[in-house]
C-alpha cells in the first residue's frame, strides 16, 4: 500500500523537471506558438533520448517499457512547463494502439520508429458530432481488391499535420451490434486524397486538425487489428491517453497556483504584500484543496487503468470531470488574483489557461463524465 510515486519515479520527476526547465522554458513555448507547426525536431530528439516517446513501448522494440505511472510523472511535468507540440498522440495513443492491435510486422515497423523518435502518429476518431461513441462514426472504409477506400471527415485530430501516420477509425460495416463495425487503418499523412487543415484553437502551442479523406486507398496490410473490432481498442487507448491528460491538468494547476502564490508574496498594495489579505489567502487555500483532490482522483485513475481494474472507466470519468473543472477554475481564479497583469498577453498564465481549456474540452464535457459516474452508481 503506497499511493504515491516510488522513489525512482520521484528522481525521474526531478530529472524531468530539470530537463524541461532547461529545454522548454516559456520562451520556447511562445516561439512554438508562433510557428506554422509547433514542432521542433531537435526538442523531439531530446525527448526521445530521455525515453519519453518510448515510455510505453516494449523493450523488444527499443522502448523503455515503463508503466502508465511513469507516463503521468512526465505528464504532470509537461503541464507544469506547458510543453508545446505533439506528444500523447504518438507516445501514448499511437504506441498503445499498436501494442494492443498491431501484428508483429506492424509493431516492428512502427513501434521501433516511434521509440527512436523517427515517426509521429495520431488517432483520428471524432467527427462532426464530437463525442467518443462508436455510433457517431460515419467515415467509411469500403473493402475492395487488396485494400480499402476511405471516405469521410475527421475533426479534432491532435497533431495530424505533423504526424507521419494517421490511424483512422472508420466504419467497415453497418452492423447493429453495439460498438462493432469500426476498423482501424494506418494511413500515411501524405496519401493521395488526404486533406489536412489545422483547426485554429485556443491553444496555439498544440494543434488540432480536420482530416478529410476523399477516396483514400489503403492496402490490406494497413488494417490494424481485426476488421470491425476496432472500437474496444480505441476505447482502451483513449482511456490510457486521457489518464495522463488529467495529470497534465493537475500539473498545470499546480504550477499556476505556485505562480499566484509567489506573486501575492511580492505584490504590494495598500502598503503590504497582497498575500497578507485574508480573502486572497483563503481563495488560494481553496485552489490548493481543489488541486490536491484532483491529483488524488487522477492518480487513482492511473492506478485503476494501469491495472485494468473494473472501475477504471468510472475512476477516469471522475478524474476527467473534476480535473477539467478544477484546472479551468484555477486559471480563471489565478487571473483574478494576479489582477490586471494576469490579463495581459505578456503574462504567462494565459498559456496555462489556454492549455487547460483545450486539454479538458478535447476529453469531452464534464456533463458526459459525470453522467458516466451517475450511471455507475445509480444505474441508467
Amino acid at each position, binding site marked *: 500500500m503506497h499511493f504515491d510515486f516510488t522513489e525512482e519515479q520521484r528522481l525521474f520527476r526531478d530529472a524531468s523537471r530539470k530537463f524541461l526547465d532547461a529545454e522548454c522554458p516559456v520562451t520556447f513555448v511562445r516561439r512554438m506558438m508562433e510557428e506554422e507547426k509547433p514542432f521542433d525536431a531537435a526538442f523531439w530528439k531530446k525527448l526521445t533520448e530521455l525515453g519519453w516517446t518510448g515510455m510505453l513501448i516494449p523493450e523488444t522494440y527499443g522502448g523503455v517499457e515503463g508503466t502508465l505511472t511513469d507516463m503521468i510523472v512526465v505528464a504532470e511535468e509537461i503541464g507544469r512547463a506547458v510543453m508545446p507540440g505533439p506528444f500523447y498522440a504518438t507516445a501514448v495513443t499511437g504506441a498503445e494502439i499498436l501494442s494492443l492491435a498491431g501484428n508483429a510486422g506492424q509493431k516492428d515497423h512502427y513501434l521501433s520508429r516511434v521509440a527512436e523518435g523517427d515517426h509521429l502518429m495520431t488517432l483520428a476518431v471524432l467527427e462532426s458530432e464530437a*463525442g467518443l461513441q462508436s455510433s457517431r462514426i460515419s467515415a467509411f472504409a469500403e473493402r475492395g481488391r487488396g485494400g480499402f477506400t476511405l471516405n469521410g471527415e475527421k475533426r*479534432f485530430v491532435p497533431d495530424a499535420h505533423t504526424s507521419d501516420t494517421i490511424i483512422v477509425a472508420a466504419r467497415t460495416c453497418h452492423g447493429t451490434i453495439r460498438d462493432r463495425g469500426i476498423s482501424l487503418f494506418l494511413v500515411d499523412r501524405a496519401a493521395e486524397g488526404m486533406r489536412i487543415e489545422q483547426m485554429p*484553437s485556443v491553444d496555439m502551442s498544440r494543434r488540432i486538425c480536420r482530416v478529410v479523406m476523399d477516396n483514400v486507398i489503403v492496402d490490406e496490410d494497413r488494417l490494424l487489428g481485426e476488421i470491425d473490432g476496432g472500437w474496444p481498442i480505441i476505447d482502451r487507448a483513449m482511456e490510457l491517453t486521457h489518464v495522463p491528460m488529467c495529470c497534465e491538468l493537475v500539473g498545470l494547476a499546480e504550477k499556476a497556483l505556485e505562480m499566484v502564490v509567489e506573486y501575492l508574496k511580492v505584490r504590494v*498594495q495598500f502598503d503590504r504584500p497582497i498575500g497578507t489579505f485574508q*480573502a486572497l489567502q483563503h481563495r488560494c487555500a481553496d485552489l490548493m484543496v481543489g488541486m490536491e483532490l484532483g491529483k488524488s482522483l487522477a492518480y487513482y485513475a492511473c492506478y485503476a487503468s494501469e491495472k485494468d481494474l473494473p472501475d477504471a472507466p468510472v475512476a477516469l470519468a471522475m478524474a476527467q470531470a473534476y480535473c477539467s473543472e478544477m484546472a479551468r477554475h484555477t486559471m480563471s481564479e489565478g*487571473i483574478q488574483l494576479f489582477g490586471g*497583469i494576469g*490579463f495581459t498577453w505578456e503574462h504567462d498564465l494565459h498559456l496555462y489557461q489556454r492549455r487547460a*481549456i483545450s486539454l479538458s474540452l478535447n476529453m469531452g464535457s464534464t456533463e*458526459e463524465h459525470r453522467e458516466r459516474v451517475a450511471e455507475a452508481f445509480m444505474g441508467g
Partner: protein
Amino acid sequence: MDLEFTAEEEDFRQEVRTWIEENLPKDYDPDEYFSTPDVDKKVEIALAWQKRLYEGGWTGLNWPKEYGGRGATVIEQHIFNEELGRARAPMAAINFIGVAMVGPTLIHWGTEEQKKRYLPKILSSEEIWCQGFSEPGAGSDLAALSTQAVEEGDHYVINGQKTWTSMAHYSHFMYLLARTNKDVKKHKGLSAFAVDMKSPGITVRPLVQLTGDSDFNEVFFEDVRVPKEQMIGPRDQGWDVAITTLMYERAGMGAGMEFEHALNQLVSLAKKTTRGGISASRDPWVRQQIAQFIIEWNAVKLTDLRALSKQISGEPPGWEGSICKLGSSYMNLRMTAFAMELLGPYGQLTRDCPLSVDQGAWLKQALMARAFTIGGGTSEIQRSILATRALGLPRK
C-alpha cells in the same frame, strides 16, 4: 411601486428609438462590431456614430443646457441608454471618458477658460480623451500612484507611467492624475491635469490582452511639460477631483445589455446543440443552469432599476452599483464557462476556424469574462466597499 413610464417618457423613448433606427448605418453589423479584434475599424465605426449622435443632439444628454447639453432627466438618460443597448449600437467607449467623466468633472471643478476650451469639442467628439489613473504599481490601491508632476516655472513636468489606458493612441487629451506632493499622506498629494497627448515625451504602447486583442495601452511620460493652467481643480486636491469623476462613472447598462444579448445567444446555442439527436435545450441540467443565469441577470437589471428610482427621487445613491457589478460579472463568468461545456470540443475553436460555432464568440467571451471582474474596480474591491462602507464592518 410603479414601473411604468409616463406618456412623455414613452414618447421620448419612441423618439430615441426612431432616431436610432433611422441613423444607425445600414451596413452596421453588431455581431461583427462586438466580436472583431480589429480595433482601428471598431474605433472608426464608434467615432462615426458618436458624430452622428452629436449632430442629432444626443451627446451630453445629462449636461446642463448652458454647456451644450440637453439637461435630460435621469430617466431620459436611462431610456436613452436602454434604447442604445436594445439596438446594440456601437459602444460609447471612444468618447465615454470625455462625455461621461471629464465633462462633468470640468463643469464641477474647471475654470471658465477650461470649460470654454474643452467642453464643446468633447461634445462634438472632435477631441477624444483618455484617462490616466491606473499604474503598474497602483491598481486597486489608486492612491499609491507614483507618476510625478514637478513644478517648474509656469509648467509642471511629468514623469512616470500609466497603464490600462483605453483609447490612448486615438486621444487628443489625457485626464491625468499625478503626484505633486510626496510629503503628505499618499492620497493628499495628488493633482489632476489635462495633458495634450501630442506633448513631447509621451509614448503610447499598446497593451496586448490575453485574448490577443489590444483594447488598452501603456503610456510613458518622460519630462512632459504641462502648462499650469491645465491643472484641473486646486493643487493637491486631485483625489477629490477624481472622486467626483468616479461618481459619474456609473456602470452603464450598455455593457450590461451585451450580457443580455449573450444570454439570448446561449438559449439559441442550447437549442441548436444536439447530443445523440436530442437538443441540449431539453436537458434538465442545461435548462436549470440557463434558468439560473436568466434569474440572476433579471435580478441585476431590477436592482439597477431600484438604483435609478433612488436617483430619480434625489435620494443618496445606495450600493446598487457594486451589487450589480458583482452580480452581473459573476453571472457572466459562469455563463461563459457553461457555454464552453455545452460546446464540448468545439468550445476551443477560435474565430479563424471555419468550423467554430458562433464565430468563436463563446471562447472569446469566456477569456474576456475576467475583464469584468478585474476592470472598473476588482470584485475584491467591490466586496471590501460593501463590507466596510455599506455594512460598516471595521477596517482595522
